[in-house]
């Protein structure tokens, strides 16, 4: 009981001390991070920002009660939800590795961003009915999301599963969710922290609660700084959790916490920022667990309603407070703009001493910020009030040497802080000390009257003769701006007008004739961690001396400004170049530049030279017109470059994003590429170079983030883009996109081949058909001639004539009249033969007339034994027929048949719609008359060649039948 009481008492005392300490920390030193307010769209202004997220493409996503916005550094793009819920009350945003953006809302719905629109994510299991508070992805590819009231869910691509208090979750009310490097999912709940994992699809939960040492079970925030987890709680501040053993440890600053709920945490290299509801941001030094800052409302800065803090991938810290959004470098950049004792305007020199105190001089005098108390104290100097201290140096014994402008050199005792002045009496003939350098017991001064070498081996406060000043004046080379002793103990002198000189083992070397060094006015000198000597010049930029030659770095190489006032070299191969516009950080190994300017709070750099110094190997102090800046130099600036993406490809300025399409048709030759290099600190400084290989010959400069190529001819292209903040693209990464515009189909090989083949085929067919037609015509002609010849021959057949004449003789005796008639008919018959033999077709009626005549002639010979029956009906009456066909068939019938009283011959000619048929009984003569057989064949050929169809011959029954197709048209 007693023990408890004392511990309580000690806690109270401790808390009081903490409070006092905190007060001192915030009040005295006046150190504040720089917050840049981002201009938000009006819609967000009316609501508050609920979540911040940077996706894999470095776009910032801002969720608010009035919908989702994408921010690229300069513009906000609004993404409306579906009609069901508009605007979305976004509560969390996350991007999975497949580049799908997931959006959770306060109502429990989940949306996926597809293309340009948010689509409701629907599964069989249905969506939660309470707010989605966070997303996380595990190593097995499950997407986890936490809810405020239903525990957590995980989606394995098919089904959604739930883990809630029934499964052992510490509570169903979850605030955030975070994966660790083992693939486990940490969930911050009202009942503690649950570390969830799936082992062979079985839920496994490890709890971190009061019982495990968690000071407060209500855990509002969780963050993983790479090695350890930090949890922010409702009442008990914050704590550290070892992700291996799950041990909880409570840092000093969190003991007896009175600052309210810790709603959000971000981490830096060795610090944490905690956001509280009433007390703004509290900064914690993680190395010792103490509070090292507390940032509240000042001026326009409203930090009283911080809803979310977020650390992006480019070293920026985003703070959403109420309806405001701030960008900051976090604890990495602190400004000292006010102090209890000293004005912070117009800093002329600065020094970080070996004990951790900060010395600075301004218009009012020389001050020291004590490391322990953080109080600012003035150093009393035996000087006129109007004298400026323009150089500061701490020797190896802790004496601080302050060079004045016109009044000599002061030495300040490390313990008593008493000052002693050295002037011409001590041998210092020029009292304008611009720069001090030293090593061991040797010190060098740069003055407007040459350089001084000082031996400070004796106690400076000992007596008049103890510090000896030896003047090194080179002829006419009186103004020396800076002096530097390198790692090889060479002393470098930066002069006004004579370039740079170097003292090496008592021998002075002048580089004023070196053709590589154009400028003769050297302001600053330093040495990088690889031994390269760096110079800044009045107007030619920066030079690097590698022992042999000078290499120049100017604007084209990535330098932001030529008005360089100071140089620093850190331990990580970086060169810091302080200039009028801010600070360039150069990685000397790969010549990459990083620029920090007004966008992150570095502005108002003094025109005074060398108002900068290092704290340790990686913190820079800069003096400005507005105060001091303390900057944690990033360890790897190559990571801190604009993130370039080609994010849209459109055709004919259409809305559809065709990214992923690499083949375009001949008609899609009006192609636009949209790209963006995201750099939130200074988006306006990003410029691009683009090139379409296969089209452009060289890179083209542009500041637009879109380019359109119209009327691209078919071919292979690669679009390339690179971005730079400095116009120096040599080290910029190139993003490229290959595409092919296809040949129009009429230019493709296969089309040409097919065309050639078909044309050849057509020509061949034409020739072939023509040849056939010609052959046919020839054949017809030949057949016609043959027919004519045959008919003529048959009619001039002596047999026929003999028969006719015999008949005629017998008739003449019997009846003269009939004989005359007979001869007339005979002559008509022959005339008709002559008339018709040239023609292809004659009307059937004429043929009938002809056969009437012919039959008359034959009837006279055979009398009643021969008979002809003609029965032509219908359309056949007006039809046509090749001349002499019927006559020849009748003649054939008569020729080949027995004609007698016992066996009379009846030749029938009749018609139907299709055929004209000639039929006679089959009564063959015993002695066959020689038959050429040409007659029938000839008829058949003529019908076939003229295209009138096939004639049919049937002698199978007791009749001989010939069927001739009816020809209706003369054509």
């Amino acid at each position, binding site marked *: 009981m007693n023990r408890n009481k004392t511990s309580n008492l000690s806690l109270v005392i401790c808390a009081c001390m903490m409070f006092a300490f905190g007060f001192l920390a915030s009040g005295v030193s006046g150190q504040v991070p720089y917050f840049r307010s981002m201009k938000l769209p009006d819609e967000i202004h009316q609501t508050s920002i609920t979540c911040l997220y940077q996706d894999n493409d470095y776009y910032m996503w801002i969720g608010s009660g009035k919908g989702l916005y994408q921010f690229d550094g300069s513009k906000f793009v609004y993404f409306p939800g579906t009609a069901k819920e508009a605007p979305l009350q976004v509560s969390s945003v996350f991007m999975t590795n497949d580049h799908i953006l997931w959006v959770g809302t306060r109502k429990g719905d989940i949306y996926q961003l597809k293309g340009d629109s948010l689509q409701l994510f629907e599964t*069989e*299991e249905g969506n939660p009915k309470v707010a989605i508070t966070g997303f996380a992805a595990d190593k097995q590819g499950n997407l986890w999301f936490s809810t405020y009231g*239903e525990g957590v869910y995980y989606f394995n691509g098919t089904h*959604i*599963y*739930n883990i*809630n208090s*029934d499964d052992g979750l510490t509570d169903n009310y979850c605030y955030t969710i975070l994966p660790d490097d083992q693939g486990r999912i940490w969930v911050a709940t009202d009942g503690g922290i649950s570390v969830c994992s799936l082992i062979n699809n079985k839920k496994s939960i490890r709890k971190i609660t009061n019982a495990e040492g968690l000071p407060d079970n209500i855990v509002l925030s969780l963050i993983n700084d790479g090695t350890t987890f930090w949890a922010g709680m409702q009442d008990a501040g914050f704590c550290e959790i070892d992700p291996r053993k799950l041990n909880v440890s409570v840092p000093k600053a969190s003991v007896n916490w009175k600052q309210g709920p810790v709603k959000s945490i971000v981490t830096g290299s060795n610090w944490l920022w905690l956001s509280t509801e009433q007390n703004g941001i509290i900064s914690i030094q993680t190395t010792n667990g103490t509070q090292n800052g507390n940032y509240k409302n000042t001026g326009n800065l409203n930090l009283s309603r911080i809803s979310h803090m977020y650390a992006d991938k480019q070293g920026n810290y985003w703070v959403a407070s109420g309806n405001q959004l701030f960008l900051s470098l976090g604890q990495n950049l602190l400004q000292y703009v006010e102090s209890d004792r000293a004005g912070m305007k117009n800093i002329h020199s600065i020094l970080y001493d070996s004990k951790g105190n900060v010395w600075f001089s301004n218009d009012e005098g020389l001050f020291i910020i004590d490391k322990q108390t953080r109080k600012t104290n003035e150093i009393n100097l035996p000087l006129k009030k109007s004298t400026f201290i323009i150089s500061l140096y701490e020797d190896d014994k802790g004496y601080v040497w302050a060079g004045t402008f016109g009044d000599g050199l002061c030495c300040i005792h490390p313990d008593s802080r008493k000052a002693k002045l050295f002037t011409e009496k001590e041998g210092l003939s020029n009292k304008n000390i611009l720069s001090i350098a030293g090593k061991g017991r040797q010190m060098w001064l740069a003055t407007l009257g040459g350089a001084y070498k000082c031996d400070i081996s004796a106690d400076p406060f000992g007596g008049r003769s103890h510090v000896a000043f030896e003047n090194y004046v080179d002829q006419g080379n009186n103004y020396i701006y800076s002096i530097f002793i390198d790692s090889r103990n060479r002393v470098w002198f930066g002069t006004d007008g004579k370039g740079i000189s170097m003292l090496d083992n008592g021998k002075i070397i002048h580089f004023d004739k070196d053709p590589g060094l154009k400028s003769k006015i050297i302001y600053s000198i330093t040495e990088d961690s690889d031994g390269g000597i760096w110079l800044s010049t009045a107007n030619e930029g920066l030079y690097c001396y590698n022992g042999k030659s000078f290499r120049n770095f100017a604007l084209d190489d990535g330098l932001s400004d030529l008005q360089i006032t100071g140089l620093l070299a850190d331990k990580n191969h970086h060169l810091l170049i302080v200039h009028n516009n801010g600070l360039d950080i150069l990685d000397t190994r790969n010549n990459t530049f990083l620029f920090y300017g007004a966008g992150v709070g570095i502005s108002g750099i003094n025109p005074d030279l060398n108002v900068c110094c290092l704290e340790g190997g990686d913190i820079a102090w800069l003096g400005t017109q507005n105060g001091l800046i303390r900057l944690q130099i990033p360890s790897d600036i190559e990571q801190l470059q604009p993130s370039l993406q080609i994010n849209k490809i459109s055709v004919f300025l259409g809305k559809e994003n065709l990214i992923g399409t690499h083949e375009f048709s001949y008609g899609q030759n009006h192609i636009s590429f949209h790209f963006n290099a995201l750099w939130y600190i200074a988006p306006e400084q990003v410029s691009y170079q683009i090139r379409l290989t296969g089209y452009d010959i060289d890179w083209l400069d542009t500041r637009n983030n879109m380019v359109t190529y119209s009327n691209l001819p078919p071919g292979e292209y690669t679009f390339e883009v690179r971005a730079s903040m400095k116009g120096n693209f040599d080290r910029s990464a190139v993003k490229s996109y290959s595409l092919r515009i296809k040949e129009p189909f009429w230019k493709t090989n296969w089309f040409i081949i097919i065309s050639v083949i078909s044309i050849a085929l057509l020509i061949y067919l034409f020739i072939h058909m023509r040849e056939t037609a010609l052959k046919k015509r020839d054949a017809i002609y030949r057949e016609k001639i043959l027919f004519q010849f045959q008919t003529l021959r048959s009619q001039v057949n002596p047999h026929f004539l003999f028969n006719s004449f015999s008949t005629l003789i017998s008739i003449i005796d019997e009846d003269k009249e009939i004989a005359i008639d007979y001869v007339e008919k005979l002559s008509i018959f022959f005339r008709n033969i002559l008339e018709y033999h040239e023609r292809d077709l004659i009307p059937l009626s004429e043929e009938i007339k002809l056969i009437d005549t012919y039959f008359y002639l034959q009837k006279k010979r055979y009398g009643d034994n021969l008979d002809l029956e003609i029965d032509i009906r219908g359309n056949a009456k007006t039809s046509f027929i090749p001349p002499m066909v019927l006559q020849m068939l009748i003649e054939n019938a008569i020729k080949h048949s027995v004609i007698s009283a016992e066996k009379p011959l009846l030749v029938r000619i009749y018609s139907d719609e299709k055929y004209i048929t000639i039929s006679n009984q089959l009564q063959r003569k015993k002695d066959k008359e020689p038959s050429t057989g040409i007659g029938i064949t000839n008829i058949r050929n003529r019908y076939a060649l003229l295209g009138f169809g096939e004639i049919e011959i049937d002698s199978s029954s007791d009749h001989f039948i010939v069927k001739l197709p009816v020809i209706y048209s003369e054509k």
Partner: protein
Amino acid sequence: MKKQTYFLLCFLFAFTDLCAQQEIMRSRKSKIDFLSDAPLELIKASSDKLNGIIDTEKRTFAFKVSNASFKGFNSPLQQEHFYENYMETNAYQYSVFEGKIIEQVDFSKDGNYTIRAKGKLNIHGIEQERIIKVQIRISKGVLYANAVFTVLLQDHNIKIPKIVFQKIAEEVKVTVAIEFERSR
């Protein structure tokens, strides 16, 4: 004194029992269908032997159906395959789903609700945790519940011979319609 306590205890037991009874709803009518819509063959069957019970206070539930009660197959052969090859009804007689309702619903109030039932689905002897979305309608003390969900055959180790694979979909769609009333 002793007697009195005894009576009191009896009364209390009866009362609590009565109270407990009030929270239990039992199914009075039910239908469960399943549909396997494979390219080659559509298998469909249903059963009205689904029994369910809900504790509206604790939001817990349990459903059970006899696998052999499914009827209405296209052919007796199909039914035989279903019983013997796939469900192995001799070894695994019942399919069971039991668990807890995620949402807080006032079951005494008439209205339409969408709730999600989280529980263990046991088919073919293999238990899988599932969340099943259920549309419910409460009207005059009767609860009408409708749900559609899919069952992945591989989740429940239901093996299908390679040749038959074309005939059975990997996913089987299950439709449930069930009515509950307060048990007396």
